[in-house]
């Protein structure tokens, strides 16, 4: 038994906004954007946020690991939907991790995820680190072009690691390249050239040197160098300054995803692990008010790791979005006339949410111990008309099950942030069914019998009270027939 990364996963939302659409909308105002209208950036659907993306990355990471008893879950982000409610707590409940684990949110810096990973690699036998980010962006801002939404998850602990930590190093500096406060909804950023010349270049290479010194290795040992940096060639310049080969510099996924903020070092790490072979040495850098550097060595176990979607699979699960107005509407950047039906009160009874948390947040149903019927939700009286036994149901998780469409519609009357609202009856072959919302679905792909998988999403946003509630929705399962590993 050795210590290290046991598993990994990622989540990139399916919608990819074409940067050309942004450039065409704002080129008249900021002509500099015209030149940036290439490639695409991942955008969260209206019902996705860092919490839902973290859940999906966590599921991707934990798939095939059984039901491990985690010691801790740390959720890193600078864009948590809740300021005072543990976001990791929602994720832990949705992942049905039980209650005997330490949960923590790590935020406040683009270095949040790498620092959390360093801490986990120092710590107990089994820890999950998840990072997710969905940065608010002003219309026509450079960040709107370069940012992407996404998440990654790393399972760390004792076992047969796919990568071992050789060394890590860190350095703190109150270098304010950008900031966001409760009073300012969006990032405020200083000049990019200054960030490069006075930030990355003097601050990062010394930490790389310190890390390599601890590992007892020279820079040529690094075969993959993962450092998020939006400015062109900064990663190459830092690598060069540290003596790392230019060929080792990893693609920052700008063309296909955009930079996923605090999550991006882990997203790049997962992307590197997906391509890695035993003996590879992967260096990960997190930059933000200083720098974190981690150096991993990939083991033989990478060759036998089970399939997952990861970064590669999720990038393949893709739908082009050319409607920039939709992106503005999803993020409330423009005030849309949503109609009177949107005024319906979405208050959540918090007492009822707590009482029903396994049903609502973890999607746990029941299995009758008398007749064996699976059912959702779990209730006190069995639904089987030939049984109706009382208090016989054991918890039965439904989140990982694949269901089939029994009936469906595409509804243009009811309010939906992304009409038409698609929903229908999802039936599970082994028992159980539920009338539920669909998501990430195109109307033309709906048909009776189509396999659907369950995804954790925002159910409703209570704009009156600043609350959002989550539940599970059905998405086409066929989108997931992609193996993350080549």
């Amino acid at each position, binding site marked *: 038994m050795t210590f290290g990364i046991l598993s990994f996963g990622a989540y990139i939302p399916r919608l990819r906004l074409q940067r050309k659409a942004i450039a065409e909308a704002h080129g008249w105002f900021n002509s500099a954007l015209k030149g940036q209208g290439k490639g695409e950036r991942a955008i969260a659907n209206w019902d996705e946020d860092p919490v839902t993306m973290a859940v999906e990355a966590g599921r991707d990471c934990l798939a095939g690991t059984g039901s491990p008893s985690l010691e801790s879950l740390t959720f890193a982000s600078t864009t948590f939907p809740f300021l005072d409610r543990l976001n990791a707590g929602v994720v832990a409940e949705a992942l049905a991790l039980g209650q005997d684990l330490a949960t923590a949110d790590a935020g406040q810096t683009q270095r949040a995820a790498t620092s959390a990973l360093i801490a986990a690699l120092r710590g107990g036998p089994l820890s999950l680190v998840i990072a997710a980010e969905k940065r608010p962006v002003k219309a026509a801002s450079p960040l709107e072009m370069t940012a992407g939404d996404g998440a990654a998850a790393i399972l760390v602990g004792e076992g047969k690691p796919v990568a071992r930590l050789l060394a890590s190093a860190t350095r703190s500096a109150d270098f304010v390249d950008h900031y966001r406060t409760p009073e300012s909804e969006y990032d405020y950023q200083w000049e990019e050239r200054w960030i490069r010349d006075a930030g990355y270049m003097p601050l990062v290479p010394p930490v790389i040197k310190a890390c390599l010194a601890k590992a007892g290795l020279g820079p040529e040992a690094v075969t993959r160098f993962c450092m998020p940096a939006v400015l062109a060639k900064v990663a190459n310049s830092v690598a060069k300054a540290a003596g790392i080969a230019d060929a080792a510099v990893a693609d920052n996924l700008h063309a296909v995803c955009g930079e996923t903020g605090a999550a991006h070092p882990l997203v790049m790490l997962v992307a590197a692990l997906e391509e890695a072979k035993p003996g590879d040495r992967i260096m990960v850098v997190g930059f933000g008010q200083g720098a974190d550097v981690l150096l991993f060595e990939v083991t033989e176990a990478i060759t036998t790791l089970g399939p997952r979607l990861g970064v590669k699979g999720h990038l393949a699960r893709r739908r082009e979005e050319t409607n920039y107005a939709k992106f503005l509407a999803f993020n409330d950047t423009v005030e849309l006339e949503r*109609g*009177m*039906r949107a005024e*319906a*009160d*979405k208050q*959540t*009874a918090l007492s*009822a*949410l707590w009482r*029903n948390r396994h*049903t*609502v947040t973890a999607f746990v149903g029941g299995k009758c111990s008398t007749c064996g*019927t699976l*059912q*959702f*939700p779990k*209730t006190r009286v069995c*639904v*089987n*008309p030939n049984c109706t036994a009382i208090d016989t149901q054991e918890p039965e998780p439904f989140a990982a099950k694949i269901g089939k*469409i*029994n*009936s*469906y*519609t*595409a*509804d*243009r*009357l*009811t*309010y*939906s942030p992304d009409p*038409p*609202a698609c*929903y*229908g*009856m999802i*039936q*599970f072959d082994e*028992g*159980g*069914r*539920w*009338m*539920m*919302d669909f998501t990430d679905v195109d*109307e033309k792909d709906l048909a*009776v*019998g189509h396999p659907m998988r369950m995804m954790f999403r925002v*159910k*409703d946003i209570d704009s009156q009270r600043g609350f959002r*509630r989550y*539940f599970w929705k059905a998405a086409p399962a066929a989108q997931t027939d992609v193996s993350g590993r080549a």
Partner: protein
Amino acid sequence: MPKGIRDKVAILGMGCSKFGERWDMNAEDLMVEAYTEALGDAGIETKQIDAAWLGTAIEEQHVGKSAVPLAVALRLPYIPVTRVENFCATGTEAFRGAVYAVASGAADIALALGVEKLKDTGYGGLPQRGRGTLPNMTWPNASAPGYFAQLAAAYRAKYGSAPEDLKRAMAHVSVKSHDNGGRNPKAHLRNKITIDTVLNSPMIAEPLGLYDCCGVSDGAACAIVTTPEIARSLGKRDLVSVKALQVAVSNGTEAQHNSWDGSYFATTRIAATRAYQEAGVERPRDEISLIEVHDCFSVTELVTMEDLHISAEGRAIHDILDGFYDADGTIPCQIDGGLKCFGHPIGASGLRMIYEMYLQMQGRAGERQRKDLPRMGLTHNLGGFPHQNVCSISIVGQYEG
């Protein structure tokens, strides 16, 4: 099997307001409009009524809770008044309360009044309403057409029907109801339409277009009931009596158990079988002369023809296109225009259907009167959604006691 309600109670009088967008009327005004007609028809005074039932479903949009609004609107003399709500079966539930009160002997004369004022929302379609704290967390953000539209997907999958064939039969349902509504001065929608109007209308919830959906209307309807003996003592002849009243309520089987395929109403099939038994009907296709069903959406009417055991399973499309249910067909369905065109003020709808039966059986239906007076008529309501609903069925007919 209990003995049932057959021929224990007769209709003494009925009334129905004009349905539609009654911008100048409060719910209370509509109650009075229906009530005065019924009172005149019955030939009695308010003080002769022993008990009353008020049916209203979306009370938060108009009168508020309790039976008080009915008592106040009609100045009922401190009699027992009860408010009932059971989705779209509400009107029939009010009728059931009054009928049972008379049958039990607790009341000699009882009133059932259903009312709904839906057009104070500010937008088209049914008002949105709360579904309960837990359902709000787990149910889809659905509309009524979105739920009922799914019948079409499941029906097509079950019988292999081509989408165009189903859509055409659904369109025939709506065209027929518009034809009928045109002959009804109290109907909300009285314009004639064509198959193409329906097929080319804007999509609401696939595959339901605008003309596959019923009107959302204001209106009230009411019935005054008594025993056949009292009715005769008050000088009434050619009585219409209650033959059966059945309600079947989903228990979660359709919503949670895979035994239901989504293409039909489990409740309707059960309620219909029980109602025929209570009424002594053995061959509904031969013995029922007129039906008013809950055509909230064209596809609902289509599958209901099978659920009532009148069309064979999988054959409704053919019966409909053959004109079997047209006004001049074998068993007219919605001869008054139905929910589609008479309108659908929820609490009033069940009583409006019985009102049409009552008029037709007495030969008082004007331009739309069937030549041969119907002997046995069935009314049907569905409240909720195909996968979880309340179904009520009443059978009324010529009294032969």
